[in-house]
Structures are given as structure tokens and as C-alpha cells.
């Protein structure tokens, strides 16, 4: 029986391959894959390609006297919108979009925000950075979120276009701003978190502290700094380390001496901290936990613990209450990662406007200079915004919260 077997399959496969090749050849009308079509649920009706309000001069709500020139400008991003830390990336993306919308409304501009999803992956950050360099409409961007991603993207930027500005809203590792010319950040660094956390513990009268890091780059860096600060303050420090994927901490808890004053957990996974806390209680050890900003999430609710956060609870900052309300009206939820993003995007938008005013068009080098010269007297974080020569946030500091019996946080002075 000679039958022509599965011609359909062959035809289909040929078509698929041809089509794939066609798809591969198609994109370049200047847009490339970073210009995502945008989330259809947002209200912005503008199409993904940059459209423009023709030079209508809109009286700015704030300071300018003469009618403002209006320029095109796109703000890019490298944030982990999907992937293992999507709950952080989603919030960062929503706040970015919100910041752009608020700014545009207030100042009559029409800047665009473009999503760039690196899925919290280092290799993808590098590729995404290369694509952003190509995209001529992006003059500055927000991100990356994690310190090792900053390294990867930073290397690409240094090589490809050192005049590009990128503001990280959540990377706290010490030293990266000094390495990369275009990097800024709107959060304080571990250089601040480590010593201030240590001071807190020392002031509470601690003499023995048990530090456990979770073998991530964030954690070990912070643990090292905190340990050094504690030891300088005369506290006895025991260091241990545990991988993030360990199932059970009971054995480790068993090794913690009963007379330890604090267990310091600079961890990224708050739920692990919760388990450790439960197991401390289970083994009869009444030791409070001090968590870093990574532990600031709904998963960690051990009463009596203290956690650090790089932004104050903005619901307590008066000027920010309106902004917060407006945000929550449009988007489902927020967390501490949000406000620094708002600050970053607003800084960029401001820089765009200033460059537009003075030069008539926006260029990357000009934006870099303007961002460096940022001098905002107030912000959603309740503090003024200015950057050091390296790009760190001047005056950024960490705030401490104590967790109450019912799980809520109370900010400590």
C-alpha cells in the first residue's frame, strides 16, 4: 500500500518554517520588540508608535512662564514584569505608567512609557539593554531591578551607549553606581541599611546577634556590612548561611543559642523568614527577628519582629496621600517597591522637559546631564531628591517598622 503519508504535515511544516523566516525579517520599521503594544487595559488611547500632540502650547500647571515647547520622549524600562518576582515587577510597571500619566496630565506633555520585561533573568537583561540602545526614541529608562541585572545591563550600556540614563528603583548593592556612568538610583544603599540596622540592634541593648544570609548576592552583601558594623559595636556575631530552596529550617534553628538577642535575616524570600520565625517559637526560643527590606512583604507577619524598608510608609506622608489614592483607584495593589519607581520616572520626565525647554529636542547626553542636576525639593517619599556625583540618592535612608500582633506594621521613629 503505497500511500502518500502525511502530506499535510509536510506542507504545514514548510509553511511554518517559511513563515518563521518571514517573521524574522519583518520587524524593522524602527520599532523592535521592546515596544510592546502596551497593556490594553490601560486607558491611554495612544498607539504604540509615538504619536504626538501637534505643537499646542499648554499652559503648564507649575512654574514655567513662557509657553513650553513640546517634545517627543519615551521612557523605557527593564523590570521583571513576569517571572519569579512578578509581584514586584507588576507594581513597578504600574507605578511607572501612573507616574507618566500623572506627569503628562499636570504638565501637558505626551511622554510615553514602554515596558521592557527581563523576567528577572540576567541574560535577558543584557539582550534587552542592547535592544533599548537601538531604540532611538528611548532617552532614559527605569531599571533594572536587581543588582546582578544592573551589572549585565550596565556592561551593555557602557559598551553601546554610555550617555544613556538608567535609574534603578530597587537595587541596593554598594559600588555599582560608581562603576556605571549612566546609573542612578532612587533607593538608599546597603551601605546605609547595614549600619543603621546594626545601630538599631545595638541601641536595643543587644550583645549577641545571629546572622543568616540566603546565599543571594543581595543577602551576602548586606550581611557582611551588618556583621562588620555590629562587631565594631562590640556585639558577638554568629554567621550562618542557608540556600533559598531549603525546605526546613528546624535544624538551623536548633543551633541558635537561647540567649541570642536578635536573629538578623537579610533575606529575599519573606515566606522563608516566616517559617524560621515559627520554628523559633516551636523550639521555645523567644528571639525577635530583624529583617531587611526583602522581608517587607505580606508573607512575613511574626509579631514583635522589626523590618527595614527603603521608603517610608507613604500613607503617612501627607502630600503623597492623594497620589496613593489615585494609584489605588486604577491599579489593584501596591507595596514598598512602588514609590521609588514613581520618583525615578518623575525625575526622568522632569529632565526631558528641561532639556526640551533649553534645546528644543531631547537627546540622551542632555538628559544624562539634567538628571545628574536634579534638585527636587519634595517627592512622594517625603524627602527631597538629588543625586550624588556617582548617582546615589542623597539623603536616602531606611525606615524601620515593627510588626504587630495583628500583622500590621507600625513605623518606628
Amino acid at each position, binding site marked *: 500500500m503505497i500511500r502518500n503519508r502525511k502530506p499535510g504535515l509536510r506542507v504545514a511544516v514548510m509553511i511554518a518554517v517559511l513563515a518563521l523566516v518571514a517573521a524574522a525579517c519583518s520587524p*524593522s520599521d524602527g520599532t523592535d520588540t521592546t515596544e510592546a503594544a502596551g497593556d490594553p487595559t490601560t486607558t491611554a488611547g495612544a498607539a504604540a508608535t509615538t504619536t504626538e500632540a501637534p505643537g499646542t502650547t499648554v499652559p503648564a500647571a507649575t512654574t514655567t512662564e513662557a509657553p513650553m515647547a513640546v517634545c517627543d520622549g519615551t521612557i523605557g524600562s527593564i523590570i521583571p514584569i513576569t517571572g519569579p518576582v512578578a509581584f514586584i515587577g507588576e507594581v513597578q510597571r504600574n507605578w511607572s505608567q501612573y507616574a507618566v500619566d500623572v506627569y503628562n496630565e499636570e504638565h501637558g506633555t505626551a511622554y510615553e512609557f514602554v515596558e521592557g520585561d527581563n523576567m528577572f533573568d540576567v541574560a535577558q537583561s543584557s539582550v534587552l539593554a542592547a535592544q533599548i540602545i537601538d531604540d532611538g526614541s528611548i532617552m532614559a529608562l527605569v531599571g533594572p531591578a536587581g543588582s546582578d541585572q544592573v551589572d549585565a545591563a550596565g556592561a551593555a550600556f557602557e559598551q553601546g551607549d554610555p550617555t544613556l540614563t538608567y535609574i534603578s528603583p530597587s537595587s541596593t548593592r554598594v559600588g555599582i553606581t560608581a562603576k556605571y556612568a549612566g546609573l542612578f538610583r532612587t533607593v538608599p544603599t546597603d551601605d546605609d541599611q547595614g549600619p543603621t540596622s546594626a545601630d538599631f540592634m545595638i541601641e536595643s541593648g543587644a550583645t549577641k546577634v545571629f546572622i543568616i544570609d540566603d546565599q543571594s548576592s543581595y543577602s551576602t552583601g548586606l550581611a557582611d556590612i551588618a556583621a562588620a558594623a555590629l562587631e565594631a559595636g562590640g556585639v558577638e556575631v554568629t554567621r550562618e548561611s542557608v540556600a533559598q530552596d531549603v525546605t526546613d529550617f528546624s535544624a538551623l534553628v536548633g543551633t541558635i543559642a537561647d540567649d541570642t538577642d536578635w536573629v538578623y535575616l537579610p533575606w529575599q524570600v519573606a515566606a522563608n523568614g516566616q517559617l524560621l520565625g515559627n520554628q523559633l517559637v516551636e523550639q521555645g526560643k523567644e528571639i525577635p527577628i530583624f529583617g531587611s527590606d526583602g522581608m517587607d512583604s505580606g508573607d512575613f507577619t511574626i509579631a514583635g519582629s522589626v523590618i527595614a524598608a527603603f521608603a517610608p510608609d507613604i500613607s503617612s506622608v501627607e502630600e503623597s496621600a492623594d497620589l496613593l489614592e489615585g494609584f489605588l483607584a486604577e491599579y489593584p495593589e501596591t507595596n514598598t517597591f512602588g514609590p521609588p519607581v514613581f520618583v525615578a520616572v518623575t525625575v526622568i520626565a522632569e529632565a526631558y522637559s528641561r532639556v526640551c525647554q533649553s534645546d528644543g529636542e531631547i537627546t540622551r547626553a542632555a538628559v544624562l546631564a539634567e538628571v545628574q542636576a536634579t534638585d527636587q525639593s519634595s517627592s512622594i517619599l517625603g524627602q527631597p531628591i538629588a543625586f550624588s556625583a556617582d548617582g546615589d540618592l542623597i539623603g536616602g535612608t531606611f525606615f524601620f517598622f515593627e510588626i504587630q500582633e495583628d500583622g500590621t506594621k507600625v513605623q518606628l521613629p
Partner: protein
Amino acid sequence: MARIGVDEWVEQSDERSEDYDGLIGPVRRILDNMAPGLKLAIGAGLVALLPLFLQQGQVRIGVSILILAMLALGLNIVVGWAGLLDLGYVAFAGFGAYFYAAVASDQIPAHWPTALVLPVIVFLSGALGVLLSLASRRLAGDYLAILTLFFGLIFLELVRNFSRLPFVSEDFDPTGGPNGIPGVEPWSFFGFEINTFNRHYYLLLALLVLLMVGLHNLDKSRTGRAWRATRDDPLAAGHMTTPVNKVRLLAVAAGAAIAGFTGAAFAAVQVGVFPTNFALVFLITIYAAVILGGSGSIPGVVLGALVIGYLPELLRNPATASWLFYLGVSVALVARMRPWSRLAGVVGGLIAFGFGVRWLVKAIWIDVSSGEAAEGFLSGILDGWILILGDHRDIITNIAFVVAIGGALLAVLSTGWRQVFVLIPTLYLGILVWENRLVFEPSLTRQLLFGAMLVVMMAVRPQGLLGKKRVEIT
């Protein structure tokens, strides 16, 4: 359909003549009769012209694909030719990457020129492969898989915690711990630095071509035949004086050497190396490339790498992702449904079903709103047909997803018109889930796709796109 006593080649003569029927038959005959060297030259030439038309960001993607292709070729030696399941393969690449990074940066006091590092890496990776292979000499295939898997995991643990090992001084940190080694110097040969994407692209392309030529010759040589023999029936091969263990050793070592070398390239391109680079996901990606393209076939594997490497970029943009999705579904239907009337039934029924559901929902529920379909060439058509959910989106898509999977499995089992009836709601739910959620979550879609692809390929077409069908003699 193996008949007893008939030679395999004679058996397949019918198939072979069929291959040249139809529209594309003559094209295939030309392709098959062309010397492989000529095909390679034409292919390489076309690829080499690409950077002239592409932007730097896309060239960067091309570089990633070239790296994936080289890694896949190395894995092909181990899995496709020698039939050994090596689940720790990515650790060899990691070794090469870290070694290069360590000596090409300020991480440790040593600083070696590229021309010296690369051969050392090739040699050391190969040696590592030999060691691993020696350790597993007595173990059967499954145990080798286990051993290599754990070797890969141990590598990751070591790389993250090396400087904390009790017998290593804290100052000596060749791996950079969890921070990795950022800021690696590019490859440079006698002053010529490979520091732009174009240069990386051309160098890697040249290396890939060389590798393909070398492997092709290896495949045709005694060693290649020995590998195939040990893969198909190690006992018989052993009795025919093939040194089975040595041959396997050679395969693992060769694969490891290629992986190490490519790892060094990876580190140079990314200008840094980080522990998360070599997690299991990367291994699965390489495997997907090999399996899809056809394990055992050199052009197949490269094709697989091209598809798998480019897929994430396609999925990133909702327009191209949607296009890919609908194309995939259509191809699957067209390839499998006979006669055409049934296919027409499915499509027609689907359209009707969609309108029906939409009308029903609008008539009964008010809170499930409809909006716009994601952008894409079909979006205009789809807007009026598909239901875009507002509230309760997550719960509805969750349920729809599970039901769609169940329906798809059921459809595989049923035949005839029952299949049509099962397929229609399944397809509808699938499209619903796609348009409402999956199209915006490329990393999830990619993972689902890879997993499903591995399973489906094994069940339907284990030899991949360009591989040759294999019969295991047990």
C-alpha cells in the same frame, strides 16, 4: 512497521520515493542531492549577510542564537550520537564561562591572554568530561543521567559558595559568589578585540561553520559509527570489538569541550557571568533545541537552536506572539485532521460556538465585559468574536485553562465526529485563555510551550524535525 528479515534500506525505499512527490518534491530532491558543503556555504553566506540589515539589538539576539546552536551541537554529540542522557551539560558551559571570567578580569591575580585561555578551557572541560565519564563507567544509562544531574547541581552550589569552603581562604574568590563576575574583558587576539556585536557575530558564525564541518566529518568517520553503534545496541557493539566505554568517554569529553569553549564565548558576550546563568532552565532550552531540531542531525540541531532561540523574542511582543499561537494551532489542526470536511467542521463549529458564547454571556451576565483583542493581524477580526473578560478574569481563565487541557487530552483519545465535538469548546477555551492572559505573559507561555513540546515531540515525532527515525532493538 518493521518487517522481519527485510533490510532497513529496502524497507524505506517506498518512503524515499514518496519524499519527492508533490509540489515541493523537486526542491527536496535538489536539496538532498546537493553536496552538504554547498548547502552549508549558502546557508552561512545568507546568515553572514544579515547584520547588514539588522539593528544592533537584533544582532545581539543573533549572537545568542549562535551560542545556543554551538551548545546544542555539543549536546547532540552526547545525546543524539552516543545516546547518553547528560543532564549536567550546562555545568560544563558554566565551567568554561567562569574560568574565562576569572582569568579575564580582576577577580583573581592571574590574567591570561585569550589565545592562551581558550585552548586551556577546551582541554580542561574535556578533562572534566572524562572524569565524569570515568566515574559513571559502571552505571547504566539512567544512572548516568542522575549522576550528571547532580554534578550540575553541585557545580551551582560550589560556584555560589566557593570562597566559603573551609579549606579556601576568604580572600581567594574565583567565582565571585552570588554576585558573579561582572566586567569581563572581551576576547582579543594579538590586539584585535572582539568588542562589538558584529564582531562577535562573525566570529561565532565562523566558529559554528567550522564546528559543523568538523562534526560532519566526525559523524562520517569510524568514531561516528562507533557512537551510533553504542547508542543502538551497546552489547552487540561491545562484542564487535567497539570499546564501548572509551567511545562513551570520548562523546562526553567532546561535548564537554565544546560546551566549555562556548561558555567562554557566552561570558565574553554578556561581559560577565552570574550563577543564575546556568540554572536548569538553560539546560532545558538546549535540550529543547536538540529535540526539536532532530537529535543526531547537525543541520536539524542548528535549526532547532534557531527556532528555540528566537522564540522568546517573538513571544515578547503580543502581536507576533498571537500570530505564532494561531499559526501553531492551525498547523496542528491541518496536519492531523483528516478528511478535510472534519477540519471544516471544527473551524465552522468554533466560529459558531464563539458567537454563541458571546451572545449568551452578554444576555445573562453583565459584569463580564468585552474589550479589544490583543494586537495582531487577526485582532480586528477577533474583536467581535472573542470574549475579553473584565472582572473575575483570573478565576475564569484558570478554570478555562484546566478544562482546555482536559479537553485537549480527550480530543487526542477520541476519533471521528466525537473528536470534533470535543475540539470545538477546547479550542475556544484555549483562545480565551490566550487572549486574556497568556499573550501578556511570555515567560509563562515559553515554559508551557517548551514542556508541551518535549512531550509531544517524543510521542509524535521523536526524531525531531530533521532527524532520522530510529528503531531500538531490545
